[in-house]
């Protein structure tokens, strides 16, 4: 009995010792002051006299998932000394709180941030000692920070981002307090990557820098819109953790609190430091220092960015200058379909009979060879893939963009698919040119012609090359759709519209291909181009892609398969044959030619 009593005392002693050692850890995520008795209710709120909505709710589950979980309420709200309490004073984030900094056993504090902030662009001190204008615009802790949450990474294979249960299991083999293990694991692994998702960082900076009134007060451009138009900004919007957000460039070396103005020689974006920032190990390591002249915040303001403005104006004029007149003619052409001239109707009916006879004689009217149909199918496929992988990037703000992008693997897959499709288009285009050249060569050989003049002559004579007759046809068509003439043009094998589209490919594909490669291999590009060359390449690529897509969707598709009598689908590109009426309406000149040949033969 006596013996058992001695053991009992030891047990009590050990228990007391264990409690002293473990008490701070036991307090983890425990509301020691019982503040949550009231503050766990979401409705604990009021509206101030000034109209501000004040919410006093603390989400217990979210609070326990961040580094502040071990800080008691009074660790921050130190002025609260009794319950019920009066209105709490604003929290001083730089005060010493009641937890120990584990490596040195000193009371933890954020006070070191003060020095960095005071020397940063976010807390300016005018050299002449004058008062800072608009002092309320400069951020306080809570303007950039809300209570941090852990974003742990998993270091084990086959485990998604988050707390790795396998890792926890290994830790708890030696460390008995699983709560502490989870806290420690989350804290450390959160620090292994960005504390906050890049999208949140951009949103945070945008809360001030995208505000027009703020920008005007401080004479700043809209840096957020221009950033979001770069690959950096778009990739971040699609959730890439590798693409740089604001902090990666503006505070690349020092603490984010030590962000400095671009004019400050210590700033990572100072012109002299920019090459080192851009050419960092994890960024454009192999790029030339010339990359630093790439303007991430280039907008198309005529005063501040005349080059970008000029390129933009060129493409806007080119796009609207080409599309609007053609669209006008096409719409008027559709209206003229309702009210055709009797002359045109009679001529069409006459030619249709001739074409029908030929079709009956030759088992249909052939328009496209197998090779051309194959090339067209290839072009359609590649074009669609390029659109689906390019346009979500162009309109990355749109709600539909992520859904389409995800079909191709999101930001880590779609750009690769886009580049493969781009290369395929270039190769297909090269093959097409080679096939044409082989045809020309065969033709010259048959005719026994040689020399560069013969080659040029043969190329000019190709049916897709515009001739004088096309200009005449355009004038006749314009008069016809404006009801100025009853005469309808009878196009030959190819109309001026088709020739224009075809020549457009010779402008668009090389332009998109070259600028695409420059942007793809941006580091190599900077060895042959200045950084601003990439700004121009981007603009050319983005504007030209819109021109191409607009032309295909608004001119080509409505003009070819949207025509009455053809819609909803033309089988021409599938079986290579055209109906007699479609041939007469679109290529009446061709019918006239073979009619004349037939008459001459007979």
């Amino acid at each position, binding site marked *: 009995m006596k013996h058992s009593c001695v053991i009992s005392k030891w047990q009590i002693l050990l228990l007391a010792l264990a409690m002293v050692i473990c008490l701070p850890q036991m307090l983890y995520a425990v509301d020691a002051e019982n503040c949550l008795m009231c503050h766990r*209710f*979401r*409705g*604990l*709120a*009021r*509206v101030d006299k*000034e*109209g*501000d*909505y*004040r*919410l006093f709710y603390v*989400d217990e589950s*979210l*609070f326990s998932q961040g580094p502040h979980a071990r800080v008691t309420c009074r660790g921050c709200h130190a002025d609260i000394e009794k*319950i*019920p309490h009066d209105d709490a004073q604003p*929290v001083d984030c730089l005060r010493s709180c009641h937890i120990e900094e584990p490596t040195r056993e000193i009371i933890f504090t954020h006070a070191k941030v003060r020095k960095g902030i005071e020397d940063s662009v976010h807390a300016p001190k005018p050299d002449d000692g004058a008062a800072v204008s608009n002092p309320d615009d400069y951020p306080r802790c*809570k303007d950039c*920070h*809300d*209570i941090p*949450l*852990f*974003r742990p990474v998993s270091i084990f294979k086959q485990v998604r*981002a*988050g707390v790795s249960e396998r890792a926890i299991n290994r830790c708890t083999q030696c460390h008995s307090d699983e709560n502490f293990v989870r806290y420690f694991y989350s804290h450390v692994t959160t620090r292994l990557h960005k504390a906050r*998702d890049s*999208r949140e960082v951009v949103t945070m900076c945008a809360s001030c820098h995208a*505000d*027009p*009134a703020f920008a*005007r007060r401080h004479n700043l*451009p*809209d840096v957020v819109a*221009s950033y979001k138009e770069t690959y950096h900004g778009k990739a971040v919007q699609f*959730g890439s953790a590798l693409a740089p957000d604001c902090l990666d460039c503006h505070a690349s070396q020092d603490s984010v609190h030590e962000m400095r103005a671009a004019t400050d020689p210590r700033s990572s974006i100072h012109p002299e430091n920019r090459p080192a920032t851009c050419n960092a190990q994890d960024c454009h390591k192999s790029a030339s220092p010339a990359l630093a002249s790439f303007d991430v915040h280039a907008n*198309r*303001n005529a005063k*501040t960015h005349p080059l970008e*403005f000029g390129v*933009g*104006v060129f493409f*806007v004029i080119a*796009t*609207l200058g080409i*599309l*609007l007149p053609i*669209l006008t003619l096409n*719409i008027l052409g*559709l*209206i003229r*379909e309702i009210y055709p001239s009797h002359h045109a109707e009679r001529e069409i009916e006459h030619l249709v009979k001739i074409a029908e006879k030929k079709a009956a004689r030759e088992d249909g009217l052939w328009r496209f060879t197998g090779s051309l149909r194959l090339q067209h199918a290839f072009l359609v496929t590649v074009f669609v893939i390029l659109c689906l992988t390019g346009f979500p990037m162009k309109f990355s703000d749109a709600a539909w963009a992520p859904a389409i992008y995800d079909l191709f693997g999101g930001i880590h897959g779609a750009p690769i698919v886009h580049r493969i499709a781009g290369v395929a288009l270039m190769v297909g285009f090269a093959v097409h040119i080679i096939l044409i050249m082989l045809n020309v060569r065969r033709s010259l050989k048959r005719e026994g012609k040689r020399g560069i003049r013969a080659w040029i002559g043969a190329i000019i004579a190709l049916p897709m090359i515009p001739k004088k007759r096309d200009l005449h046809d355009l004038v006749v068509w314009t008069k016809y759709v404006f009801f100025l003439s009853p005469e309808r043009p009878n196009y030959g094998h190819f109309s001026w519209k088709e020739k224009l589209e075809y020549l457009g490919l010779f402008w668009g594909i090389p332009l998109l291909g070259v600028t695409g490669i420059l942007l793809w291999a941006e580091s190599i590009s900077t060895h042959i181009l200045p950084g601003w060359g990439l700004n121009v390449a981007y603009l050319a690529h983005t504007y030209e892609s*819109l021109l191409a897509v*607009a032309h295909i*969707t*608004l001119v080509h598709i409505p003009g070819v398969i949207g025509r*009455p009598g053809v*819609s909803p689908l033309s089988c021409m590109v599938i079986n290579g044959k055209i109906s007699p009426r479609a041939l007469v309406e679109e290529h009446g000149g061709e019918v006239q030619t073979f009619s004349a040949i037939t008459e001459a033969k007979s």
Partner: protein
Amino acid sequence: MSKKSSFSKRGFLFLYVGFWSVVLIGAATWLTVYLTGTLGDPLTGKGSRQLDAKAFDSILALTDKKVVRYLGEWEFLEPKLPGHFHHIGRWYQSDEWNFCIECHGPIPHSRSLKERAFLNMHNLFISCQVCHVQESQGVAPRRFGWVDMTTGKPGPNPEMLKGVWGEYGAKIVPLTGPVENPQPLSLTEEQEFAEEFRQRMNSISDSQKVIGNKFIHRKCVEDPVRCSSCHDAQNPFLPYTALGYSQERADFLVSAEVVDLVKRYETFHMPNLLNPQAPPLELGPEDPNK
């Protein structure tokens, strides 16, 4: 037949051309606006807000201004309150049944500086009628139950242990009618009047507004139920255990800790000071279920 066929063909052609024309004109207009909009500084033409930005942000935060928190393995959407440090998580369910909310909103209490946030907190699970409406002149309600916040139908006691604190999708209401089929204390006339009153607000005179306002609130008491009436160990106004609270929770709500807290806050309650002679409320008949 041929004429009819020709007419229908022409009609179809007309529709067809009309459709394509509208599509193409729409697309060309969008393209023109979009492309010209790409030139210049994006800030140009953006007006600054004339409203008090802070107050306006406060209002927006409660409606549509949500932010996404990306935490790697999970994401969540929460309202962004300006200057609010703690996370809110999801927003609470709005009360679609109680018509008082339409004018007073979900955070109606503002007069008593000390108590207002606590009173608003109770709005999560107690309807306005419990404290502010009498069963009849001078008779406070004594029977209470839960009403679904969406349908307005009486329901069983919610499972409080499973849900979030104070958020049960239902609110406590005074009950009337037979014991076997109790109904929420009816304010049908007032509700119908209030709906029309709101619709015609802009067309009636100021004096008419005063009269209408009085009518809507005719069953409201001058001196509502006090915090200390519920948090009273001797005779609590609400029958906690009958409403589904555990005995432990019911005991806590009238414990010395809570009662003391309530007393200290109530000391500052202005309406009491201004109306010290208000007659005490007479209690209605005992709840037969209790």
